[in-house]
């Protein structure tokens, strides 16, 4: 029942007086009589939050979010029907003369918080997908998988590049944090997320796609980036996008850093890397190669050159030494210099037997490279157990598959001894065992006395970790001397602000954090880019995104298996790879990547966990605004209803419905009913039904007005998060009504269409074509290149614009010459713009000299 709180006899007053005077939050306001407090406030631009409000209607049951306090309610003759005396629903209470309204008093805030908490308790769903939350880069994984499922590979890559500019490399070497938390594990196996990423990157490379990544207007600020590896490239990419003029200084003769000199070709082929780097450079970035910091220039030099800020992203390329006697031997290498040599294409004689000392990821690449260099026996030596090796288990397995052996619980003591015949080195080892656990339960390894052992080898490579700089101070100048380092030889930088101890100098990536995965370097450099932007523009940093999140269950144990009712087992696609026997013969890539068919099948496995209403959910927005801690006050934990996909345009998830019934009240066709078997004492529904009548015309207005993700556009399967969405106001391309619409654009993709209720001729209405008929914009069938048929009977073939224009111009000129201008004609289109139509007829009339020009309005 709509509640209207009116003093008795009020109706009699209306015709007599036309205005009321009241105060809202102390502001005196004169308003027309007969408006609700909410309407008066909105017209005076005083915000009052609402959930169930639809202009011109009253919600039932009431959400009570719009409550306000009426300080003098007794004088106004009002009695509250809400729990707290003095609070009233502003959407259902008329503004009266003399009223004193408070929109955000303590009581009001408390009431709103309580109501939001109660409503949120019944709301069940994931805001963000677990994969998305687990990825250090916070990449919109679900989103790009959805693009892939629709065949929109270009869009998928653009979405990835919003947060990660090196998808080719990451798609090949990422440890795949996301896959460990993929919900699909509860059905069968995780989605093969990383291979999908690699697929789109490769697809776009093979199809020569120009991603057309837009840049902001030039800021006039210049930024120096030291180091052209993943961190440096990432910082340069994001800073360039922001409109800064960026120069990369790289010590090596080529860009790429660890991607080029750390990962062997069987992991990241050089041609792929070159393509990746070029696509970043195409944004317009200056590069200075073979410029070593400290030798060729100093931080002061950069300042003097006019750079407004400097980013240090030099990676961690200085090997920690092996501290045993006789390592000064030409057959003893350190990991990074060894890999650099291999990656430069050198193939020195490594002998028949080699030992790799260390158990990190780099050690695995060293071992696998040794195998490829013809070494028969490669042994990795590590003082702890296999499970404790810092290398990724996947990398360990891959090395093992290629014949690498592991000598565990052993540590080298000397390389001074005389080797067996035909070998070059004798490596003395000692066996290790676990010691007593320390305070934190960690057990150190200790040598077992008298357990020495030895191994004759030809080559030893040590991989014991890296630091960023060799010396305790950086060589160079005064500023370098001020640059603080960490005890482990990294550049000290505040993890939040990326600031080093020198003003205007920032650091990120492995150089600051020590060796980590590529995606972590990307994240750190992206953060640094944001910080540098704020620094040079003297702007506050954009606030960090809220961590607020509804979830179906934080850990796998919390997730109800009922979520997966009706989902059949479909195992993940196996990525084709070369068998180890042949793979070890050369440095060519081992994993071949998904075919398009496989990628499509794999993308289909995604359960689309996250909410596609992420960008428009009112409940989440208000919960955040009112600081409701749903982790304490509670949220839905089990699904009560299956997801309903029977409507052609709209997907319904009743588990997310908060029973505000806005959808029902905005439908102009009276085609929707939302009902409940009963409501509990707080107005929350039990046994919810949402039904579309036969008269539903799929206009989608209900979806655009849903408070949550309970109603969703079926075609809108990419959640919009983080990066801002551009609203482009334009005119509908279909019928002649000329509805005004808003295209929501992310990157270069039109994600959805909505309409502004304030703007005519349609005032928020759109038909099914307007709201849903935009997929064609990004359809794979779009014509993307000019085509010509060189001769009648021959097929159309793609050509460059130049050739197509020349062909056309010559043919037209010839016909005009031979048969006169009236032998040519033009048909223009009622779908093109007015300007295009004008230019078209002008071309025929003024250019060709004929009036043979018409359009097809007759049909």
């Amino acid at each position, binding site marked *: 029942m709509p509640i209207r709180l009116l003093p008795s006899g009020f109706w009699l007053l209306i015709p007599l007086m036309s205005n009321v005077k009241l105060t809202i939050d102390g502001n005196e306001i004169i308003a027309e009589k007969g408006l609700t407090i909410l309407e008066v406030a909105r017209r005076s631009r005083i915000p009052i939050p609402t959930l169930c409000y639809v202009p011109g209607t009253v919600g039932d049951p009431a959400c009570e979010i719009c409550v306000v306090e009426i300080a003098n309610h007794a004088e106004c003759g009002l009695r509250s029907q809400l729990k707290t005396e003095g609070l009233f629903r502003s959407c259902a209470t008329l503004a009266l003369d003399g009223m004193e309204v408070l929109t955000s008093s303590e009581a009001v805030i408390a009431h709103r918080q309580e109501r939001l908490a109660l409503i949120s308790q019944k709301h069940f769903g994931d805001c963000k997908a677990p994969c998305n939350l687990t990825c250090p880069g916070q990449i919109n994984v679900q989103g790009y998988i959805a693009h892939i499922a629709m065949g929109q590979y270009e869009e998928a890559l653009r979405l990835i590049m919003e947060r990660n500019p090196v998808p080719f490399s990451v798609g090949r070497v990422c440890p795949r944090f996301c896959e460990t938390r993929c919900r699909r594990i509860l059905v069968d196996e995780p989605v093969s997320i990383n291979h999908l990423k690699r697929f789109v990157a490769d697809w776009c490379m093979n199809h020569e796609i*120009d991603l057309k990544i837009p840049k902001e207007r030039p800021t006039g600020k210049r930024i120096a980036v030291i180091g052209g590896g993943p961190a440096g490239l990432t910082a340069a990419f994001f800073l360039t996008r922001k409109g800064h003029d960026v120069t990369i200084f790289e010590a090596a003769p080529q860009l790429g850093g660890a991607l080029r000199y750390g990962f062997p070709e069987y992991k990241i082929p050089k041609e792929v890397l070159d393509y990746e780097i070029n696509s970043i450079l195409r944004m317009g970035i200056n590069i200075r190669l073979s410029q070593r910091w400290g030798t060729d220039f100093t931080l002061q030099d950069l300042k003097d050159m006019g750079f407004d800020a400097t980013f240090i992203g030099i990676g961690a390329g200085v090997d920690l030494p092996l501290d045993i006697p006789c390592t000064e031997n030409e057959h003893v290498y350190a990991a990074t210099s060894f890999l650099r040599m291999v990656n430069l294409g050198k193939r020195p004689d490594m002998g028949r037997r080699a030992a790799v000392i260390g158990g990190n990821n780099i050690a695995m690449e060293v071992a696998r490279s040794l195998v490829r260099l013809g070494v028969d026996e490669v042994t990795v030596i590590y003082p702890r157990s296999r499970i404790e090796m810092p290398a990724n288990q996947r990398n360990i397995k891959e090395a093992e598959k290629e014949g690498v052996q592991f000598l565990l619980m052993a540590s080298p003591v000397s390389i001074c001894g005389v080797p067996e015949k035909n070998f070059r080195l004798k490596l003395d080892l000692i066996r290790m065992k676990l010691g007593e656990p320390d305070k934190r339960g960690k057990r150190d390894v200790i040598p077992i006395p008298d357990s020495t052992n030895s191994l004759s080898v030809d080559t030893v490579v040590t991989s014991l970790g890296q630091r960023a700089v060799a010396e305790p101070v950086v060589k160079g100048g005064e500023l370098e001397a001020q640059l603080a380092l960490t005890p482990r030889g990294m550049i000290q930088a505040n993890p939040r602000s990326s600031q080093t101890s020198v003003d205007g100098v920032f650091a990120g990536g492995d150089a600051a954090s020590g060796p980590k995965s590529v995606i972590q370097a990307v994240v750190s450099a992206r953060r640094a880019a944001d910080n540098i932007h704020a620094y040079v523009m003297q702007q506050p940093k954009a606030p960090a995104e809220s961590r607020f999140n509804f979830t179906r269950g934080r850990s796998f144990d919390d997730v109800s298996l009922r979520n997966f009712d009706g989902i059949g087992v479909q195992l993940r696609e196996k990525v084709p790879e070369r068998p180890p026997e042949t793979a070890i013969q050369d440095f060519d890539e081992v994993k071949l990547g998904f075919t398009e068919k496989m990628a499509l099948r794999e993308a289909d496995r995604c359960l689309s966990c996250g909410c596609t209403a992420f960008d428009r959910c009112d409940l989440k927005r208000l919960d955040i605004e009112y600081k409701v801690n749903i982790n304490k006050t509670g949220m839905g934990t089990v699904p009560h209803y299956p997801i309903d996909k029977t409507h*052609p*345009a709209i997907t319904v998830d009743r588990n997310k419905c908060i029973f505000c019934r806005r959808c029902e009240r905005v439908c102009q066709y009276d085609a929707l009913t939302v009902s409940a078997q009963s409501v509990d004492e707080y107005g929350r529904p039990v046994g919810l039904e949402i039904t579309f009548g036969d008269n539903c015309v799929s206009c989608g207005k209900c979806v655009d007005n849903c408070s949550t993700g309970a109603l969703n556009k*079926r075609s809108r399967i990419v959640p919009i998060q983080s990066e801002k969405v551009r609203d*482009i106001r*334009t005119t509908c391309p*279909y*019928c*002649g*009504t*000329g509805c*005004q619409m808003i*295209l929501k*654009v992310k990157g270069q*993709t*039109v994600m959805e269409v909505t309409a502004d209720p304030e703007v005519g*001729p349609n005032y928020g*209405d759109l038909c*099914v*074509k307007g709201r849903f*008929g935009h*997929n*064609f914009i990004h*359809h794979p*069938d*779009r014509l*993307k290149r000019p085509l010509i048929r060189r001769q009648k009977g021959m097929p159309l073939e793609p050509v460059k614009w130049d050739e*197509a*224009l*020349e062909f056309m*111009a010559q043919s*037209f000129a010839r*016909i005009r010459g031979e048969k006169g201008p*009236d032998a040519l*004609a*033009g*048909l223009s*289109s*009622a*779908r093109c*713009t*007015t*300007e*295009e139509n004008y*230019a*078209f*007829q002008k071309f025929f*009339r*003024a*250019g060709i*000299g004929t*009036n*043979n*020009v*018409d*359009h*097809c*309005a*007759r*049909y």
Partner: protein
Amino acid sequence: MTNTINGIVDSDVMLVIGSNTTETHPIIGLRMLAAAKKGARLIVADPRRIMLCDRAELWLQQRPGTDSALINAMCHVILRDGLEDRKFIEERTENFAAFRESVADCTPQWAEKISNVPAGEIEKAARIFAQAERAGIYYTMGITQHTSGTDNVCALANLALITGNLGKAGAGLNPLRGQNNVQGASDMGCNPTFFPGYQRCDSPEARRKFAGIWGVELSDRPGLVATEMPDAILEGRLAGMWIMGENPVLSDPNSDHVRRALEKLEILVVQDIFLTETAELADVVLPAASFAEKEGTFTNTERRVQRVRRAVPPPGEARDDLSIINMVAARMLATGHGHSISMDPVFHTVPPLAPEIFAEITTCWPAMAGMSYERLEEGPLTWPCPTPDHPGTPILHVDGFPRGRALLSAITWQGPEELPDEEYPLVLTTGRVLYQYHTGTMTRRSRVLEDAAPGPYVEMNPDDARAAGVADGDEVRASSRRGSIVLPVRVTDRIQQGLVFIPFHYREAAANLLTNDALDPHCKIAEAKVCAVKIEKTVTEPAPLAL
């Protein structure tokens, strides 16, 4: 439209004729439904029981092609009973005597014989319409796509004039444009007889004016209208064509004829966003931009000029249509800014760009002279808008007509060119469905729309179905003198006996293979809405025996 879309809500009576508004113009349909809810009286004249009929006070189920008979009879009743607006007729119209004469014999009984609408209902409709304070007329292709299309429109104008329903809110004569920018394309002189702004090419004065603006002498030879072009090609008069954003192979009546003609061209250039049926025949295909990839304006059915704004760049090497025209012009004529390559790294536009063209447009047509992109940024403007401080003109003819007085025209009803006979006993009418648009180039590639209306069908009355021996869902062959197509049948009493309906969006059963390309003598519009057809059950070949 002489009036506005949102003004519909203010009307007392709506006459919707030959327009399935809720499907073809859903938002205008919504306004009609809202007006009906508020108490406006709705009269629908349509051979099919369209959705609006459910809310109508009166549904006149005329035979296709008999509209002007119906309207003339309504006028007859109004004059007979003295319901006309004498003051309006005296002050603002001319030729009344001849007009009165022309409808003198058009009695409701006469019209009943022709249109099959009971005389009593015609009388009733006339009275409801004439007695309203504000009565609006709404129509679309159902009125114009006939050999008598021009006459139909004149008849409706007569009705509006004698009842004084022009120049005020909630009334008017309102053609609902079927495509987003039909209005703009017409305004801009994409038409063989008019320069931009409806200035006639055969007027020496207009030619002088445009020669001045464009800096070249202009031809006084009349041009060909689109519907005449196929014959001109087949007769060897036309050798090269450039088709921008149209798909006549699917949208034109008697499309087989069109296809044969286009194939005979020495050069056909098609510019489009997809490889349409027409583009498949081309010698040069130029990849163009969708509405979301260009800047410019569309003019809606209310004459309201509204901005189109670029949201994303065109895919691959595709270019916006204006830049393509500029590139061709630069290449062929060394005009424009002389650029044939782009300086814009992301959008690849080639000048002169839309704002510059728009400024040129405002110099050649007084009705848009007061508009500019700056003003449009603040909101749309409705022409006529002659000066920079003019607010635009949402309702036409408030103070008078451009020619002083409006002409009442004497119309004699003429039947459609092709009538059903023994061989082709049914009348075919074509149209749209809500979920699809035109030849489906865009809608059929938008999943929701295609899923909702995935395939063609022919609507047939239960009696006709019984006579033809077909049941709902059967596959049938629909044939006319020009061609035949195979599609499933939908048996429904929404359609009257003797009539069948086929939506024309579908290439797999293109309705326009059947339709008639006979032309209206005045405006050369083809009679796509009426032709004679037969429907037969397809004989299914016995499946080959499996071994």
